[in-house]
């Protein structure tokens, strides 16, 4: 594909530094139409980028890395040599812009999905109506690694199981949104959404000119409200804590960030203790009752008495306190059953079953390899498929047919034959691309996805935007940050089309001018007179 002709570019004529960019042929581009012109809602942002020029952008990129290292916004990345290093979280300076109308569509789709998933979890550990009505097979549900027998018969205080969830969305060649997977266990990444926005404001405030970008900064408040709402009813304001496995965890930064922003304690397992089926934390003033725990630790580890006995991170007796209704845990124990990749296949049916609605955003076509017929179909065209292990997250063990070698294909076939129930296959979705700064201050198309975050308190709230992850390698579709992916600040524009901010009448109080220093000769005389 050749570069667009100069006259097609909005600022190419006026600015010698304008960044050349050619959308990838055949792919949907988030910022440009195939003609090479920006979409109407990205035009202003692209113009500002061109105004900065590639040299300045390169310099700003270095400044960004310094800021992130200084603020400690890093993650562990595995280098090609196998070493793990602390690296600045790679934020791309070109934001992803989502129009108000598009966001309306996305958020209604995510909301619907989260609601259905929550109903599903409640049902699976409750009356199992969806199973009795034959929509989801019981054998599949009960064999999921995320299915928690200990949660059977539980009822969380306000009926919410999935307090915090994230849906991974992608867009195909035609710009159609699809859900790639659901995360209702311990979705991470929200701290990067908030830190990215702060960093963008500090590094490239020019880009915001003329846009009313919907704020994301109130997320910790939404989360705190949801946790307070989930807490068992007791006298006074409930005590909320964030539970982290510890500083060795790759998302520790996020755990600390959320605790700090919510003004609550960040606890580890050894800080918590259960007495008489109630949970307490050890403070300098003795034990203090804990009402709601936002756990950022896998549920297998939370109580060695009832779950994994070898867990040294857990709190003995916590499940008992939980079952007695003396402490809330978010997300609830057992939600993992809903984001299993084999259950994903059934989510559209759940939406129809529980909500009596058609899914707003469709799934990616998926095959369950446990089913011999589906397996044969997939085996025949495995080089055109993506194969994923059902119980994993973070892009681990994902097989991408089109880019796999013969050897890899053979190995994958063996793996499937070994345990077909552990695998699903999906049609390859050619992810949409977005202009991204690559080496040398140039802009090139790179694949992106989107993870909006939903918080379920009294109702489902969705943070405008979410985490846009970007594959930094050319042609790659793996966006996971543990595998070299980066991120973009994601802008959702205000309802007025995003141009300009609302005007408020301004009616200021009258205020005296600031006093000025006033040592005078006359003052000196008065001084002598008065004392």
């Amino acid at each position: 594909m050749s570069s667009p002709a100069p006259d097609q570019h909005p600022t190419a004529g006026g600015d010698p530094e304008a960044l050349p960019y050619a959308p990838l042929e055949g792919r949907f581009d988030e910022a440009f139409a195939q003609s090479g012109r920006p979409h109407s809602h990205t035009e202003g942002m692209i113009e500002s980028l061109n105004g900065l020029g590639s040299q300045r952008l390169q310099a700003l990129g270095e400044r960004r890395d310094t800021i992130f290292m200084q603020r400690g916004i890093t993650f562990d990345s595995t280098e090609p040599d196998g070493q793990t290093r602390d690296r600045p979280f790679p934020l791309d300076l070109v934001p992803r812009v989502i129009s108000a109308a598009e966001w309306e569509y996305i958020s209604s789709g995510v909301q619907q999905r989260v609601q259905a998933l929550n109903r599903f979890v409640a049902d699976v550990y409750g009356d199992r109506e969806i199973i009795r009505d034959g929509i989801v097979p019981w054998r599949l549900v009960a064999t999921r690694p995320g299915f928690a027998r200990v949660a059977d018969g539980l009822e969380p205080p306000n009926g919410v199981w999935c307090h915090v969830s994230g849906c991974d969305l992608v867009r195909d060649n035609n710009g159609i949104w699809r859900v790639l997977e659901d995360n209702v266990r311990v979705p991470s990444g929200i701290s990067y959404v908030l830190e990215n926005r702060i960093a963008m404001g500090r590094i490239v405030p020019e880009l915001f000119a003329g846009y009313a970008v919907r704020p994301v900064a109130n997320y910790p408040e939404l989360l705190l409200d949801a946790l307070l709402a989930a807490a068992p009813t007791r006298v006074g304001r409930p005590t909320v804590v964030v539970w982290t496995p510890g500083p060795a965890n790759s998302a520790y930064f996020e755990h600390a960030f959320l605790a700090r922003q919510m003004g609550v304690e960040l606890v580890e397992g050894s800080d918590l203790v259960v007495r008489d089926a109630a949970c307490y934390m050890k403070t300098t003033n003795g034990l203090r009752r804990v009402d709601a725990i936002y756990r950022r630790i896998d549920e297998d580890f939370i109580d060695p008495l009832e779950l994994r006995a070898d867990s040294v991170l857990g709190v003995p007796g916590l499940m008992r306190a939980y079952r007695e209704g003396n402490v809330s845990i978010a997300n609830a124990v057992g939600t993992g059953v809903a984001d299993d990749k084999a259950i994903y296949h059934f989510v559209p049916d759940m939406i129809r079953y529980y909500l009596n609605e058609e899914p707003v955003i469709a799934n990616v076509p998926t095959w369950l390899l446990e089913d011999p017929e589906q397996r044969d179909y997939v085996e025949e065209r495995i080089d055109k498929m993506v194969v994923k292990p059902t119980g994993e997250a973070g892009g681990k063990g994902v097989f991408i047919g089109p880019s796999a070698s013969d050897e890899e294909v053979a190995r994958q076939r063996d793996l499937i034959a070994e345990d077909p129930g552990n695998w699903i296959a999906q049609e390859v979705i050619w992810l949409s691309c977005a202009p991204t700064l690559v080496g040398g201050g140039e802009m090139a198309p790179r694949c992106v996805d989107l993870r909006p975050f939903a918080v379920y308190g009294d109702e489902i709230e969705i943070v405008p935007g979410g985490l846009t992850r970007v594959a930094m390698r050319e042609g790659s579709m793996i966006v996971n940050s543990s595998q070299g992916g980066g991120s973009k600040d994601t802008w959702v524009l205000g309802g007025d089309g995003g141009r300009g901010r609302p005007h408020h009448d301004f009616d200021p109080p009258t205020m005296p001018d600031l006093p000025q220093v006033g040592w005078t000769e006359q003052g000196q005389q008065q001084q002598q007179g008065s004392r």
Partner: protein
Amino acid sequence: MLARIAHDLYWLGRHIARAEHTARMLDGLFQVELEGGADDPRSVSLSWESVVVVMGAGSLAQPTGRSLRDDVVERLTSDRSNAVSIVSSVGAAREGARRLRDTIPAEAWEALNTFNLELQQRLRDGDVGTGSQSIYSYVKESSALYWGLAAATMQRDDAHSFLFAGGRIEAAAMVLRMLRVALPPVRPTDDEGSEIPRRDGNALALLRAVGGFQAFMRSAAAPPRAEPVARFLLFERAFPDSVAASTDFLHRMLSRADSEPGGSTAALRLARLIADLELRRRSELGPDELPTAFREIQHELEQVEREIHSRYFGGDLDIPQRATA
């Protein structure tokens, strides 16, 4: 000590605190400006006009061809002809310190001198011109460095008292000014539904600007809405930039420096203000009463300023006529 020296120390403290709070306010507004839209649950009405009102920095007339933002930012940051710009405040602090070199610790003087030079250098390099607010972080950090060195190395004598008294009274005055502008009276024509979220948004922006967000979240048993935030910034003694903490500290400094604090109208008046703040803390404050409370407290603080000038420096406080008339 000499009244002139005490006066210069007091104003040195005021100028540094003024520069710091101006930087906090502008930084906060840059953040506000990046976000916000009509359909947000909490919109923010703070604007570049508001800053001008806080500073009382003259008319809003703007030269043609420039945005109000660029104009206000320049006027309050780098404009030397404006006495309340950051560069003027830091310059005035440095000039004051030059006359006090035998009184303030050498390390603090060097930090302030470097602050002044580096600030000018950064402004020449166009750090503000390109829209980055890093200059404001620099101002915050440099003033913290100055206060830290002074606190660590200064003899606790009258000089220390007047320097820190100046810093605290300026902080209290600036926080009150910001509160008044961020939470103006509810107009009778306003419909409640839109007015309340706007005040909440402003309160949160202000809380973040003065660096009190985490302190608030950890101490208050309430979400960051207008009323609890206003109460926090007025009455919370454990938060160092609150009006109550500043006036407490100021009172300690004056009581220590004054040979006869019981006979000092400045100290007495201040003690009355402190008691008044404590009484107000113990009573309910409706949304309508907040702006009145701000105004009354600000007025009383201004009287304290005047008393300090006449008791210790023997001169009248120079508040420009235009605004007080």
